[in-house]
């Protein structure tokens, strides 16, 4: 059980920390300016954008949002993105955590080799892989299908695997041992003991992977060719390709795209901070 506490040395460390704090707040103004400008600009008409790119909108209008939602049907894209990311995350987190746990708990020769094996996925540019991937998926008729793409995303588990693996390696065996003596089977141990202990890691990896998959436009562009299955990021990308023509719509589209991510972030960051019983796992 965790109580929040304050490490306060009171030895001149406090002024130093306050200065750093202020500097960081000043630094955050850059982000506020950029994101804030995006949001404000989403309420400006084209004519106003030309004259007044950075400033408060003089005649705020909701026209851009209307265009984006009504005419272009962004609801559909948001739904698709949410579906895709949920499906991929579900698959990926299950598969990669189990993989890492199995590898961490079991000793065999060639372990080092397998560690490298699972990192190779990060070392190759994705654009070359699409030809074989597309051929494989089209043979099983999974192109243009959210599940097919979710499989591909789930397979790119190098990052998740690495984080989980290092973490599981450091888990103490005492808890697991006592559970096994009590007669629980391996899977039950994993699900009911290991996972709850690892909540911060799950949350961190989940959050970071969510962002990576949500912001990816290349794989959806390859595998989801029909307009109905398009994702939000892909829609925004097609706007930014023709930036000058669409810039009034881009601001509102980007603002809309930010909202789900921010929601997920606020949901997960509490998990990460809470730490929970992880504190007692390490001695």
């Amino acid at each position: 059980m965790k109580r929040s506490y304050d490490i306060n040395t009171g030895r001149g460390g406090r002024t130093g920390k306050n200065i750093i704090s202020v500097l960081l707040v000043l630094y955050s103004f850059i982000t506020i300016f950029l994101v804030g400008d995006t949001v404000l600009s989403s309420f400006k008409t084209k004519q106003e954008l030309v004259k007044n790119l950075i400033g408060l909108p003089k005649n705020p209008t909701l026209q851009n949002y209307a265009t984006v939602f009504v005419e272009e049907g962004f609801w559909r894209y948001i739904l698709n993105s949410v579906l895709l990311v949920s499906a991929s995350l579900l698959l990926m987190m299950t598969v990669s955590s189990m993989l890492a746990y199995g590898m961490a708990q079991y000793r065999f020769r060639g372990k080092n080799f397998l560690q490298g094996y699972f990192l190779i996925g990060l070392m190759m540019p994705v654009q070359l892989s699409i030809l074989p991937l597309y051929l494989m998926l089209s043979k099983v008729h999974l192109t243009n299908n959210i599940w097919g793409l979710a499989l591909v995303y789930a397979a790119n588990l190098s990052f998740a695997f690495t984080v989980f693996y290092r973490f599981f390696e450091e888990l103490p065996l005492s808890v697991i041992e006592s559970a096994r003596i009590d007669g629980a089977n391996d899977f039950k141990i994993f699900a009911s003991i290991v996972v709850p202990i690892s909540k911060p890691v799950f949350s961190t990896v989940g959050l970071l992977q969510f962002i990576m998959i949500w912001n990816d436009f290349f794989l959806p562009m390859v595998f989801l060719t029909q307009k109905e299955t398009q994702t939000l990021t892909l829609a925004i990308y097609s706007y930014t390709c023709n930036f000058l023509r669409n810039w009034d719509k881009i601001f509102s589209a980007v603002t809309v795209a930010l909202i789900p991510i921010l929601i997920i972030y606020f949901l997960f960051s509490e998990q990460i901070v809470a730490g929970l019983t992880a504190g007692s796992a390490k001695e």
Partner: protein
Amino acid sequence: MKIEPIRLKSRSNHAYLGFILPGLILYSVFVIIPILCSVFYSFFEWSGIGPMKFIGLKNFQYLLFGDRMSPIFFNALKNNLKYLACVLLIITPIQLFLAYMLFLKIRYSKYIRTMLFLPYVLSTSIVGFFSLLLFDGNIGVLNRVIADVFGRQYTLSWLGDPKIVFKLFVAIVIWQCMSSGMMIFYADMQAVSRDVIEASVVDGCGDTRRFFSIVLPNMRASLITNITLSVIYAMTMFGLPYVLVGPSGGVNNSLDFIAMVFYRYAFGGTYYGTTDIGFGSSISVVMLIIILAVWLITDRFLKRIKD
């Protein structure tokens, strides 16, 4: 305490197989097979469709020793290594420092945490737009502010200035991508035992000393993870320079990276476009070998530090 994974009796072997197999199969089919295909293609002269002509190692010869390609390739490699040095010497320490600051709960921690993380959430095409907004030579905000405050002659061309473009690039990377590593460090710091920390406070231990003697040694997992991943991401850097300066690699190729060279030569541009999958594959195979080598060196080094 070093943990010894136990060698299990045959009965339990099957359980662990059940854990490992799904991931192994999924990964091998969707990630390893395409890589093997690329290795295969690299020995051919092939545009991506149509007849494949076997040419053995010619692609590699041309890439590494050819008059025209090798300066481009090695310049890009140099940039990658330069960037790698920045990551290890500048970015990772900053991530550690900031994670520790947040751990110490300096004032406005929650707000700062969110604000530091927010840029990571933006997709790279938005970052491209922001760089236009800020750094454009004519209409960028920075230059306007400088012109108003200091005078027109002090304006810079930012991404067009070969002397500062790389430094500017690292600054943008820090702004956008630093927080993911920081989050990993932060999560790991949270897991350090409370009792030890409280004991150190009671003992009057200063923040700095606490960091080096207690927190850091317990962060082995995240340190190794972070450094491993950062090293690999540094060698495959592509998305950000692409949106900032396009596939040509920036002013005098100063932001050219090997993944960029790959992209340019594998796919060309649509207007004179010959996709050259054979040659592109050979570039990516060389990339793979280099990155593997870099990773192996890092791994040995980290292992030595671990003990």
